[in-house]
């Protein structure tokens, strides 16, 4: 596989240099790998810090800005960042109102953020943590590392970000984030495998006529391999996998998310099928977001995330946001 890179070793640093140039509205510390809102710390505001392996852009760095994250810590490609980054980010955004760590549920992210929380608290920062684990393809049991954090991360970061920007206190922001996660479910499919810069070849072999159902965002194979399906069949599989786990009572936010290499033309067509299936299943829809938001490098495929919202969560979702990756109302 060919990549638009210099050498695999500098991919993350190069991207941060490029981000720094393109986004003067952010403070990008290339050396220490922390992306921070320029105006941080905002007096009286809870700081929101997230992070994870690189390769999921615009997540998380592209979601830093007013109305969303205060800071993000990008790790190596598909590798959780290290505690030092998170501690530094927490210190940079804490105004005294405390910091919320938004952590996708992967062993690496959990362990590193846990260590960072201890260290940050040693330095006098009040830290709360919320775990994002929305992927219904993984059974949450003793026999797995628990459900993965995928598309719901965007909902958690946006809605908790709005709550924080309103000046809500740490417990409230944490509770909102937790509620968004609990209300969210995702399911993803891959039409192609991922090629990481370090490996340089696809992480697994996915033949022409087949697809993977129940994939994550790190190039892992999914739960099941199937003969190729149409967009309509995939929409049914994804929505039904989610509805098998939860029956939405409230209207839902829908994220139809591309894994990176699926053209927007296809994503919109897929959205049409997702909406058809939601309609047939009687799920009321409040808002729809279509695009490449929580990606897996050059993977072709898509995921569907549903998040049930009450009026308060919907209000926070609609609140203004201004980040490189998500922007409205300002």
């Amino acid at each position, binding site marked *: 596989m060919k990549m638009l890179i210099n050498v695999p070793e500098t991919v993350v640093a190069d991207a941060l240099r490029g981000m720094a140039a393109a986004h003067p509205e952010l403070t990008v510390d290339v050396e220490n790998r922390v992306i921070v809102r320029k105006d941080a710390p905002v007096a009286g505001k809870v700081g929101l810090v997230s992070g994870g392996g690189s390769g999921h852009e615009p997540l998380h760095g592209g979601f830093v800005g007013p109305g969303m994250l205060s800071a993000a810590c990008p790790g190596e490609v598909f590798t*959780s960042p290290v505690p030092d980054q998170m501690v530094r980010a927490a210190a940079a955004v804490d105004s005294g109102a405390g910091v919320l760590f938004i952590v996708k549920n992967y*062993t*690496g992210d959990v362990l590193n953020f846990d260590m960072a929380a201890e260290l940050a608290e040693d330095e006098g920062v009040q830290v709360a943590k919320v775990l994002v684990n929305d992927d219904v393809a993984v059974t949450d049991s003793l026999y797995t590392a628990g459900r993965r954090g995928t598309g719901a991360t965007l909902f958690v970061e946006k809605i908790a970000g709005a709550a924080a920007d309103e000046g809500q206190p740490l417990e409230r922001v944490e509770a909102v984030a937790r509620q968004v996660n609990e209300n969210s479910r995702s399911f993803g499919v891959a039409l192609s495998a991922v090629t990481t810069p370090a490996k340089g070849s696809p992480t697994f072999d996915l033949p022409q006529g087949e697809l993977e159902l129940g994939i994550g965002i790190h190039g892992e194979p999914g739960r099941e391999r199937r003969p190729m399906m149409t967009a309509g069949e995939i929409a049914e599989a994804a929505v039904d996998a989610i509805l098998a786990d939860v029956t939405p009572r409230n209207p839902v936010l829908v994220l139809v998310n591309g894994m990176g290499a699926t053209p927007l033309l296809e994503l919109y067509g897929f959205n049409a099928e997702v909406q058809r299936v939601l309609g047939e299943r009687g799920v009321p829809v409040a808002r729809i977001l279509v695009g490449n938001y929580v990606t897996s490098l050059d993977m072709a495929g898509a995921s569907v995330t549903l998040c049930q919202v009450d009026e308060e969560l919907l209000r926070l979702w609609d609140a203004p946001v201004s980040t490189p990756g998500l922007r409205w109302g300002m």
Partner: protein
Amino acid sequence: MRGVSVLDAAFFRRWMLATAASVDREAERLTALDSPIGDADHGGNLRRGFTAVRDALEKEPPATPGAVLTLAGRLLISKVGGASGPLYGTLLRRAGKTLGDAAEVDEQQLAEALRAGVDAVRQLGGAAPGDKTMIDALVPAVDALGSSFAAARSAAEEAAVATTPMQAHKGRASYLGERSIGHQDPGATSAALLIAALETAAAGTEADGE
């Protein structure tokens, strides 16, 4: 059974350097093992970490066995990331702390320190033997340390291979359910490299490690 040998800071440095060298050599294999059941970064992760360890040890070698391991553990935590960074970091840091500031330790103490480290890893990551993780190689290796480094090495290597038929219950591979069966665990494989490097270090020269 064999005689008691004395392990000084130089031995521990050689151990870390030998590990760095073999991780370097085997990085691509570790990443390849991490592809079908993981995210293809294990080799790169450990190489980044042990390169930092090597650089630090070469710049300012700590004076005691405990300090060597504590430094190595701390560097793994702050350079690696992922699951393996905190886990290996904790293993070495806890082992180092357990050794205290003795200038020399014996094999018995090393085994006890590593056992404490492995316990800390089990506590941190929640994995038990049979979950298809580094724990599967570390536990039998530490048990065999009572006999000899060579025995520990074979135990770890065999245990790593023995993860192949297991279904993963921890880490990324667990997402695959039954599809994780039939692949050797990358972390168990790198754990075997760490244990094998003890033997290299005991051979006395740092040749392999520098």
